[in-house]
C-alpha cells in the first residue's frame, strides 16, 4: 500500500490491535483477508482487511450499484428524449443556430435524420419512453430519474468508455467500481466485491483496462464473470480432485505452515486465513450463482429461458442475487464483439436499436421490479447508459454517428427521486442546453448516494491525490 494512503487504510500499530481489528473490530474477515501494509519486504505492520465493510463518511442512501452499461452508445432521440422537430427537419442540413458538433465519421454536411420511434407517457409521472422499452416504461417509469442533458469529452468509443468508467479519457485510472470498493469495502465474505458481467458476444473498444482498478491496489480489481456455467475463475477443484482430498490437503498446509510459523509475523496468519476464505467461496459462491433453483415466476419476470432476453435476463437476475449478498458494484454489459452487436448503430439505427432493446427491455424492467418487491431498490442504485449518445444527423442514410454533446442516462433506486426528467437538449437533440451534467457529475451523484465524498475518496498517484471525479463534479441535486 502506498505510504500516503492512510485515509482509507489505517495502519495497525500493535499485534494486539491487529488481532482485535482483524477478528472482531470489523465483524469478521471478509472475502479478501488482508493486505500487507508494506510492499514486498516491508515490516510486519498489517492493514486490517481492506475489503472489510466500511461505514461511509456521509449519510448513505444506497449500499450497492448496478450499472446497466449499454455499450456502443444508445441513441437518446430514439429512447428517452423525443424530438418532434427532428422529424420535421429530417433530410435537411442542421440549421446553423444549433451550433457545431465534431463527429467521428460524418461530415458537417450530413442531413438530419428523424426517428420512426413513437413515445408514450408512462406512470403517474408521465415520463416519456419510446416504444423500444415498453416494459420498462409501463412498469418502472415512476422509479426512473432520466437525465436528458448528459455530456462527455470524447466522441471515440475507447476514450469515452474510459471516461464513463474512470472520469479520464485515457486508460490507467481506476474505474468507479474499484473506487467504490476502495471506499466502502465489501459486505460479502464469499463473493467478490466488484463484478463485471461482460456480454458473451465479445470485446469492447475500451477492453480490459476500462473496468480495471488502474493504479489502485490489485485487491480492488474487478472479477470478470465468464459467460459460461462457471463464471468465476478457479472456483472449481482441478479435475480428478475430490472435495475431501482438498480438505485433507488444506489441513496439511495449515499444519505445516503452523509448525514453521514465526509468532510475530501476522502476514502468515493472514495468508492462512485467505485459504480458509477461498475454501468457503468454493463451497458457497456456486449456490449464489446457480439460477436453477429460482422459481419459474422469477425467471419469467426477467425473460430467462426465452429468446432474445435469455442471456441479458440471466445476467440481470444474477446481479440481483449478488447485491442481495452484499456485492458492492455489478456491471451488466449489453453489447460486445463487432460494433453491430453493440448499440453502435452506424448503418441502421432502426434495426440495431430494435434488436438491442428487445434483448434488454424485459430483463431491465424485471430487475427493477424484482429489486423493488424484495425491498432492495431502496439500497441499490441502478444506473443506465452508454459512453455517449448518437448524432441527430444521419450516417450512411439511416444510421447515426457517435455523439457526446448531449445524451440521456437514467438512475433509479438508491434514494434517487424517480419519476422525473432532468435537463434538456436543444430541439434536435444536439447539445445539452438546460442544466448540462458531465459524466463526472453522474459519478459524483453515485458517490453521494453511497455516502462517499468525492473530495475525500482519494489515492496518491504520481504526485497527485487522484479521485474518481478528476477535478470536481456536481451532485445532480434535482434527483437526490
Amino acid at each position, binding site marked *: 500500500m502506498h505510504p500516503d494512503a492512510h485515509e482509507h487504510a489505517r495502519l495497525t500499530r500493535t499485534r494486539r490491535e491487529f488481532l482485535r481489528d482483524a477478528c472482531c473490530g470489523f465483524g469478521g474477515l471478509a472475502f479478501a483477508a488482508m493486505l500487507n501494509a508494506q*510492499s514486498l519486504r516491508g*515490516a510486519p505492520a498489517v492493514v486490517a482487511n481492506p475489503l472489510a465493510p466500511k461505514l461511509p463518511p456521509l449519510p448513505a442512501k444506497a449500499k450497492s450499484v448496478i450499472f446497466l452499461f449499454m455499450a456502443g452508445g444508445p441513441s437518446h432521440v430514439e429512447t428517452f428524449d423525443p424530438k418532434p422537430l427532428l422529424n420535421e427537419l429530417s433530410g435537411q442540413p442542421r440549421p446553423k443556430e444549433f451550433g457545431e458538433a465534431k463527429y467521428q465519421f460524418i461530415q458537417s454536411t450530413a442531413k438530419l435524420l428523424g426517428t420512426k420511434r413513437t413515445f408514450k407517457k408512462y406512470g403517474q409521472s408521465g415520463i416519456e419512453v419510446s416504444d423500444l422499452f415498453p416494459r420498462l416504461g409501463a412498469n418502472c417509469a415512476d422509479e426512473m430519474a432520466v437525465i436528458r442533458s448528459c455530456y462527455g469529452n470524447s466522441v471515440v468509443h475507447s476514450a469515452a468508455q474510459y471516461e464513463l468508467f474512470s472520469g479520464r479519457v485515457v486508460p490507467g485510472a481506476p474505474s468507479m467500481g474499484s473506487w467504490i470498493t476502495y471506499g466502502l469495502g465489501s459486505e460479502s465474505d464469499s463473493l467478490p466485491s466488484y463484478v463485471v458481467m461482460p456480454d458473451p458476444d*465479445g470485446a469492447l473498444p475500451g477492453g480490459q483496462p476500462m473496468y480495471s482498478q488502474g493504479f489502485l491496489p490489485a485487491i480492488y480489481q474487478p472479477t470478470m464473470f465468464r459467460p459460461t456455467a462457471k463464471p468465476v475463475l478457479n472456483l472449481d477443484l482441478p479435475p480428478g480432485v475430490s472435495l475431501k482430498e482438498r480438505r485433507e490437503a488444506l489441513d496439511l498446509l495449515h499444519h505445516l505452515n503452523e509448525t514453521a510459523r514465526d509468532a510475530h509475523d501476522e502476514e502468515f496468519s493472514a495468508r492462512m486465513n485467505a485459504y480458509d476464505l477461498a475454501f468457503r467461496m468454493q463451497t458457497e459462491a456456486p449456490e449464489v450463482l446457480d439460477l436453477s433453483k429460482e422459481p419459474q415466476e422469477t425467471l419469467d419476470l426477467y425473460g430467462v429461458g426465452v429468446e432474445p432476453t435469455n442471456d441479458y435476463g440471466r445476467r440481470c437476475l444474477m446481479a440481483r442475487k449478488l447485491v442481495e449478498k452484499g456485492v458492492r458494484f455489478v456491471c451488466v454489459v449489453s453489447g460486445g464483439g463487432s460494433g453491430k452487436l453493440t448499440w453502435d448503430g452506424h448503418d441502421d439505427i432502426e434495426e440495431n436499436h430494435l434488436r438491442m432493446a428487445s434483448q434488454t427491455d424485459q430483463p431491465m424492467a424485471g430487475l427493477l421490479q424484482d429489486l423493488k418487491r424484495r425491498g432492495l431498490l431502496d439500497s441499490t442504485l441502478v444506473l443506465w447508459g452508454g459512453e455517449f449518445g448518437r448524432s441527430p444527423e444521419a450516417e450512411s442514410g439511416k444510421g447515426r454517428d457517435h455523439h457526446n454533446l448531449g445524451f440521456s442516462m437514467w438512475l433509479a433506486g438508491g434514494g434517487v427521486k424517480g419519476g422525473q426528467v432532468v435537463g434538456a437538449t436543444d430541439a434536435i437533440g444536439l447539445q445539452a442546453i438546460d442544466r448540462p451534467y458531465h459524466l463526472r457529475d453522474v459519478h459524483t451523484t453515485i458517490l453521494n448516494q453511497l455516502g462517499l465524498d468525492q473530495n475525500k475518496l482519494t489515492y496518491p498517484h*504520481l504526485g497527485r491525490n487522484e479521485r474518481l471525479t478528476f477535478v470536481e463534479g456536481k451532485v445532480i441535486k434535482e434527483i437526490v
Partner: protein
Amino acid sequence: MVAVFAAAFFPAPVRAAAAADEEGLKFFHDRIEPVLQRECYECHSSQAKKLKAGLHLDSKAGMLAGGESGAALAPGDGQSLILQALRHENNLEMPPDRPQLAPDIIADFEQWVKRGAPDSRVDAPPPPLDPKRDPAQARLTFWAFQPVKKPELPAVKDAGWAAGNPIDRFVLAKLEEHGLKPAPAASRTELVRRVYLDVTGLPPSPEEVQAFLADSAPDAYEKLVNRLLANPHYGEQMARDWLDVVRYAESEGFEYDRHLPEAWRFRDYVINAFNRDKPFDRFLTEQLAGDEIAPGDPECEAAAVFHRLGTVRRNAGNLEIAVSRNEVLIERTDLIRASMLGLTMGCARCHDHKFDPILQKDYYRLQAYLSETQENDILLVSAEEKKDGETRTKAITDQMRKVRKAKDAAEGEEKKKLDGELDALEDQLPPYPATIPGIKDDPAQRTEIHVLKRGDWEKKGDLVAPRPPSVLVSDDLPELPADTPNPRAQLAKWLTDPKHPLTPRVAVNRIWQHHFGAGLVRTTNDFGQNGERPSHPELLDWLAYQFVASGWSQKAVHRAILLSNTYRQSSQNEQAEAAANADPENRLVWHVARRRLAAEEIRDSMLAISGQLNAKIGGPSVMIPVDPDLTKFLYKPSQWSVTKDQAEFNRRSIYLMAKRNLHLPFMETFDQPDLLSSCGRRESSTHAPQALEMMNGKLANDEATALAARLTREAGADHGKVVDRAYWLVTGRAPTTEERRLSLAYLQDQPLKEFALVMFNLNAFLYAP
C-alpha cells in the same frame, strides 16, 4: 503567465491613466469592491478560511498574479478570466453553486476592466508568497534539490557490527538513536535462499545450498554474491524493476491494442545493460536519445524504443491528429519525470503545482524537449526482402481465400481436409518484416509547445521551449531555442550530470527498495514535496555519492548492500514487540522482513523446482495458451497468436508477452502492475483469489504434477526420501521432525501430486526469508 504577457503588452500608459482616473477609482469603490467583498472574498482573499484555486482577489496584485487557471485580470481585456467566470463562459462559473450575478453587475465589471481596472485598495497586502511554491526558495531549502554531499560516517556504540561496511554505520546509528538493536544474523540457510531470490529471482537448487553450507572459507558469502551478480539471471531479475518503472508493454492499448512485434528488443536491451553493468548515466542517455547520439546503432535504437512504450490512440475518422499528439507527448514526458527525474508533476499540467515549486510553465518546457520526436519504424530487413515477403504473403493469402471459398461449399471429410490445407498455408506465411518501433527528430514536424490553460488542449497560452524545471536551475538560465539540435541528448546530459541532485538519489533508492521492499524514500517516483522524506538522508547521499564515484555502476551498489550486515539480518528480532511499537513500518531496518515473492518469481520458481524451466535468455516474446474467454474479449482474438514452439511456454515470465488488453490472470492476482503508467513500487497483497489460483489454477496444478513426477524420479517410492527431497527443492532446507511426521502421515493415503501442490503453497515457498 497571462499576467506577465498582459503587463508587457499594456505598458505604462494604461497604469498611469488608471492612477489618475479619479472617476474610475470611485466607480471601483462604489460598484466593484462591494461585490468582490460580498461574493468573492469568502474563498479568494487573505481572510478565506480555505483559499480556493490559489487566487487572491483582495488586491490588484493578487488579481494580476492569478491562481491555478492563470491571471484573473488583464486590464483592458474583455476576455479576462474574471469576466468569463461571471458570464459563465468556458465552463467557468463564479460565484459557484449560486445563480449568476445580475446582468447590471456583470456589465459594471466589464466596464471596469475596460477602463483599465482602476483599483483603490492601495493598502491591500500583496498575496503572501508560499515558500513551498517558490522555485528559487525551494532550490535553496528543500532536501531533494540540495547537492549530494559525501557524508561523514556517524559514530556508533556497537562498532563491531558496523565495522565492515559504511551502510551498517548509518543504519546502526539510527537504530541506536531509537534505543533499538539490529536483529541477529540470518542463518546461512536463510541467507543463501534470500540472496538467490533477490539477485536472480530464482531459488537455489538443493546442491547450490549445500555447496554454500559446506564452504567454510571466510569469504564464502562474498564469493557467492560475486558469482550471483555475474549470473545472467541477475539481468533478468533487475530488468523487471526497470520495466515496471517504464510501464513496459508490447502493445499500444486503446481499442486496437496494436502489437509492437519488435519491442522485446528493448526488454533485451535492458537485461543486457544490467548484466554488463552499463554505466547508469549511459543507460539513461541511450533510452532518452539513443537515436540522436548513435544513429544506426542497433543497441541505441533498441534503447530509444523507450519512447514508444506508452499507450497510443489510433482512431479512424475525422478526429484531430493534434489531439492524439498532445496525449502522446503528455504520456511520454510524464514517464521521464517519474522514472528518471523522480519528480512527478501531474498537477502542473493544469496549474502551478499546489505543493511543489513546479511552475506550470516548467511542465511544458520539459515536454518541449520532445517536440520534434516522431515515430520512426526501422525496418530490419532490406527493401528487397520486404518486397519479396509481401509478394509471397499476397500469393499465399490469395490461395487461402480460394480454399476458404471451397470450404464454405464443402462438407464432412472434405471440409476437414480443406481446414488442414488452410492451416498448412497459414504456416507458410512469411513473418511480418521485423521493424523496430523507433523514434527520430523531425524538425519539419515540430509541434509548437504552448502552456495549456487548465491543461486544455484548446486553450493555448504562451509558447515555450526546452528548459529544465526552474527549481533545479538558476533563474537566469534561458530556454534553449525551440529548434535546438538533438534536444533529447541535451536533456540526457542535464539529467546525468554527476552533480544532479535527483538522478543518482532516485536510482540508488530503487536499488535499496529492491533489497528491503521499501526505499529509503518510499515514494520512489516522487522526491517532491508530496513524496516522503528519506528515512536515512545521509545513507541515501552516501549511496548516491558512491554510485556516481564508481562510474554509475549499479552492481557496485548492489554488492555494497548485499555484503552489509544490515542485509544479512534475520527476519526475526528478539526485541520485535518493542521495535514494532517504536517503528511499526520497519523504516529503521531493525530486521529484514520476509517478502512475498512477486508474481514472476512464484511462476519461475515453480518451473525451476518442477524441473520444467526453459532458462533461455532473450528473444521474441512468448504467447502462452490462455483461456479462450480471455482472447474472446480482445478486439481481434487472433492477436493472441500462441507461440508455436511449446518449449517456449516454460520460459521465464519476463519473456511472456506483455499485452495491455490481456493480462495473465495468475500475474494479475499476484499484483503485477497494470502496464499503463509508471509503477515505482509493487503492491504485495494477500487475498483469497491468490489461494484459489495456487490451489485450483492450471499453472500451479501443472507444476505440482511435474514436481510429483520429479520426486518419484529422484527419490523413488520411499516417502521419507520424497519428503526430504521435496523440502530441499521447494524451501531450500531439510524438513523439521514435525514437518516430516505430518508429511509422512499425509502421504500414507493421499496423492503425491496434492502433496506437491501443498509444498508450492507453503509460506516457506511463497516468501523469501
